[in-house]
């Protein structure tokens, strides 16, 4: 149990995919304009990350390894992720059309979010169990969602700031994310993975 907690904390905070490993920056910047959108994106990415890491694990251990097909991992995982993203796209479109509209292109882009593939690959190289793989995926999702929501909040507030012209827009968002990244360095050394 403690180990699983550590896996989650490690993936969410210590080795936060966005702020420490700098993966998935595209949706991080793209979907953090408004808190509502960010929460939706966090949910969608979380869904993809968790299901994709679970299914990838199953595909890996039930299909690829028994047939000695490890060299196909990348292809198979991309296939799985693509399907998971499509599923999420369907879900948001049917359950919350407004969110679907707000997130727009960013939902299909989850497929190319390197964090998702990264989680699946890291899972298989680290030889985790199914449960641990799921927790790692969920932890990565929590970490991604957390920083996405935080940055969205900060950006909403920064809109009322008097930012110098050259720094307006994405520049100040990246600076803000940079300072957040500095803050997340405080978690180094928490869990040795």
């Amino acid at each position, binding site marked *: 149990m403690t180990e699983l907690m550590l896996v989650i904390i490690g993936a969410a905070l210590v080795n936060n995919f966005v702020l420490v490993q700098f993966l998935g920056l595209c949706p991080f910047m793209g979907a953090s*304009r408004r808190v509502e959108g960010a929460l939706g994106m966090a949910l969608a990415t979380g869904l993809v990350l968790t299901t994709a890491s679970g299914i990838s694990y199953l595909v890996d251990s039930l299909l690829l390894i028994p047939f000695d097909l490890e060299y196909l991992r990348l292809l198979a995982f991309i296939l799985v992720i693509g*399907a998971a993203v499509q599923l999420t796209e369907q879900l948001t479109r049917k359950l919350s059309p*407004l969110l679907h509209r707000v997130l727009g292109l960013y939902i299909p882009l989850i497929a190319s979010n390197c964090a998702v593939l990264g989680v699946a690959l890291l899972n298989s190289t680290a030889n985790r169990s199914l449960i641990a793989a799921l927790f790692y995926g969920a932890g990565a999702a929590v970490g991604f969602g957390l920083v996405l929501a935080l940055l969205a909040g900060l950006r909403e507030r920064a809109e009322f700031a008097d930012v110098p012209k050259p720094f307006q827009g994405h520049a100040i968002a990246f600076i803000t994310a940079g300072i957040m990244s500095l803050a997340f360095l405080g978690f180094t050394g928490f869990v040795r993975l």
Partner: protein
Amino acid sequence: MLIGTVVLAGLALGLCAVLVLTDRLLPAGRDPVAEQVESLLPRIQCAQCGYPGCRPYAEAIAAGDADINRCPPGGEETVRRLADLLGREVPALDTTLGNASMNRVARIDERNCIGCNRCVPVCPVDAVVGVQQTIHAVIAAHCTGCELCLAHCPVDCIDLVSRDA
């Protein structure tokens, strides 16, 4: 090699099947965006956006066919609120479309009105009253300042005046 192809193809087919299944099983959600967009528009039916009313324009926005900066009476404020709702950048208002404003109302100059009745049916909110051969009048409290009647008056007897005056 063959095994790999088979496994990948099988995987792909299986996932396809799941996706098709979920697509069939999930009920389609009602898209409330058109209504939300409409509620942000001034709803004065001026048609200056190029659509025959606020609702059609809202539907066009929802479908992604129309830009959100085509509402002159709503002004910058409406553009901003639409951008906020749809999570878009705020475009500049298209000022070439017209200048309808809710702060003005139509007024019929009684000396020139010939009672042709052509302005009555075009008013989207039935704010013009009058029967043929009699002088017409505008109910200022109902008039939205949409300017639609202006073009239909053969003697140009309709003016827009400030609502408060």
